[in-house]
């Protein structure tokens, strides 16, 4: 799972990807890659975080708590540890 993955929507996102935790509330981005083993990655994919999907950060909880994002018309809370392994292209 360590080899780089190309997003499915044309072109290659060579650089510019940041961890989801780097986005602040209100900011959007496109999922680039999720780091981790199949089990953990599949759970996120099942919930709609397929590479190429547009997400928006809604809010983040205090004291290093989770991040709430909006994806495909639903809202998800994602713990900070997991969120730091979701790479997104901001914008």
């Amino acid at each position: 799972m360590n080899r780089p993955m190309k997003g499915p929507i044309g072109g290659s996102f060579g650089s510019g990807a940041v961890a989801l935790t780097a986005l602040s509330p209100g900011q959007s981005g496109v999922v680039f890659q999720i780091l981790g083993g199949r089990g953990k990655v599949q759970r996120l994919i099942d919930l709609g975080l397929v590479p190429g999907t547009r997400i928006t950060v809604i809010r983040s909880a205090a004291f290093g708590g989770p991040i709430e994002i909006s994806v495909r018309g639903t809202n998800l809370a994602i713990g900070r540890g997991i969120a730091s392994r979701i790479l997104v292209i901001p914008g």
Partner: protein
Amino acid sequence: MDAQEEEKTIEIALAGNANVGKSVIFNALTGLNQSVGNWPGKTVERAEGTLFYKGYKIRVIDLPGIYSLSVYSMEEIVTRDYISSRNADFVINVIDASALERNLFFTFQLMEMEAPLIIALNQIDFAEKKGIKINVEKLSDLLGVPVFPTVAIRGTGIDNILNFIIDVKEKKKEFKPAKIEYGKEVEEAINLILEKLREYKLKITKYYPERWVAIKLLEQDEQITQRVSEEENGSDIVTFAEKIAKNLEEIHGEPSWMVLSSERYSKANRIATEVEHFERRPKKSKSEILEEVTGGPKLGLITLIMVMVAIFYGVFTFGAFLEDLLTTYMDMFMEYTRGVLSDILGHFGSALIVDGLIGGIASGIAVAIPYILTFYLIISFLEDSGYLPRAAFVIDSFMHKIGLHGKAFIPMIISFGCNVPAIAGTRIMETRRERLIAAMLSVMVPCSATTVVILGIVAKFIGILPALGLYLLDIILIIVLGKILYRWLPGEGTGLIMEIPPYKLPSIKNVVIKAWVNIKEFLMIALPVIGLGSVFLEFLYVTNYIEVFSMIFNPLIVGILHLPEQATVPLILGILRKEMTLILIAEAFGTTNLALVMTPVQMIVFTAVTMIYIPCIATIAALIKEFGWKISLAMTIITILLAVFVGAILTAILPLFLG
């Protein structure tokens, strides 16, 4: 069952994501006519009910709320096995109209399994409020599946589904499970594996649709790949599928399973875009203010604390009111039966039955119904409204400090009412390791019975501050224990991944049904063990064998904890129900004014021990049901050791503060 009767029986299953109103539809269909159990061999809840409609007996199975069939949880395994068993005449896929795309992802997986699918397009009113209008006919055409719009909370549309089912059964309508096709490249890969499967005629295709097996092999699904490789020539197919998967991987630059998930989502997106019509952008609404107040970084925590205080206040004022009412009637009933039975059975027999069996069960009910029912009503309301996930969201970082994540907050808050339902509530955790930690910590949470003791002894005779101090002590113990378990138990922690559903106004009917089903489950676990335990202990009491136990435990209770001798029996009997310690110690001393007979230190130690030691017998029964007797025994021993340890320390250091 004769043929005629069989014809008149239909089995339907409800499948869908969490938070789509599936249980509301289930409750609307079956009302109180339902039972909750476990799936065979699994600790996954199985809710089942029946309804009678137009001369048919319809069995309804409520499948767990899940997002996928990729088998990363027991809920997904159970669903997969059930669908492939072909027991269901119809599978009703409940989908949330306001989140069509995400829901269709799961629908496609049901279609891959060639389930006899009907779609209930639920919460259509809510979607409209969000400005989404859905072309139902077009959706049905594109999927090849009958679609019925419903508003489950008001019961709208459910009859249409039932009528359709009956019509199909009476052959007035044609019905064929729809199939699903993906993009050209993926289809080619699936078909290559499919041909090979047909050629080898594997047994697995008798249990599962062959195309589905092909898809799972392409996805490198662990369970199916394993099963295929166990068959004769199976490993050939596995190797072949690996080659095809590799090929697909090279084209797309991502693993084959991710290619398929992407396919499903892009198809879901295409269909959703075609059938959805956005009327207007929803404007900032009241619910957004509510979101900020309950989910905002600082505000959310303040709200959470206020909600918890309100829950306790509600439970203890309304619960106490109900308890007074109930105990009055229970006492009258006990006195009456004592009068009748002592004539027949004599003093010994009537004591066993009246004080043991009836007394035990009666006070079980008197405690269960008032506090736990009130608590369940509040929790069900908060659950249906959507508040609980917000609470889990704001408390997540704190829960990480005790080795868990935000979701564990839900069983732990339930524990404040009663530990029994909290044990089953730990199922929302993803791994067994986390379920164990959550259960151990939930058992440490003071339940309503323990709170009665804390209030009745420490708060009443010493003051509210020492009582709060005991709570604080308990929280510290939970944190320390959580940290230790997190470090010691094998495996690693998982983080929080949870949907935050939109706020909804709960249906009172649904809240009441939910509370009732939970109470029923509680009584089924608790009453038998409380009844039997009460008879046994009453026997020890009447025969004076209890003295033997006192002699065994006296060195511990008098010697180490410096408690009066009279405390021994109450602490032994407290295993039945914790508030018994308060009642019995007052009886043992012959006064309810404990301040006259115990020092403040003794009262605090006695209460602290009651709070920490041994989960009550009903909790132990729940633990055995959930985790087996070994783990229950281990947890019981841990709590006893902890109670003695803390009691001994308090005995040593409290005199320095209290003089």
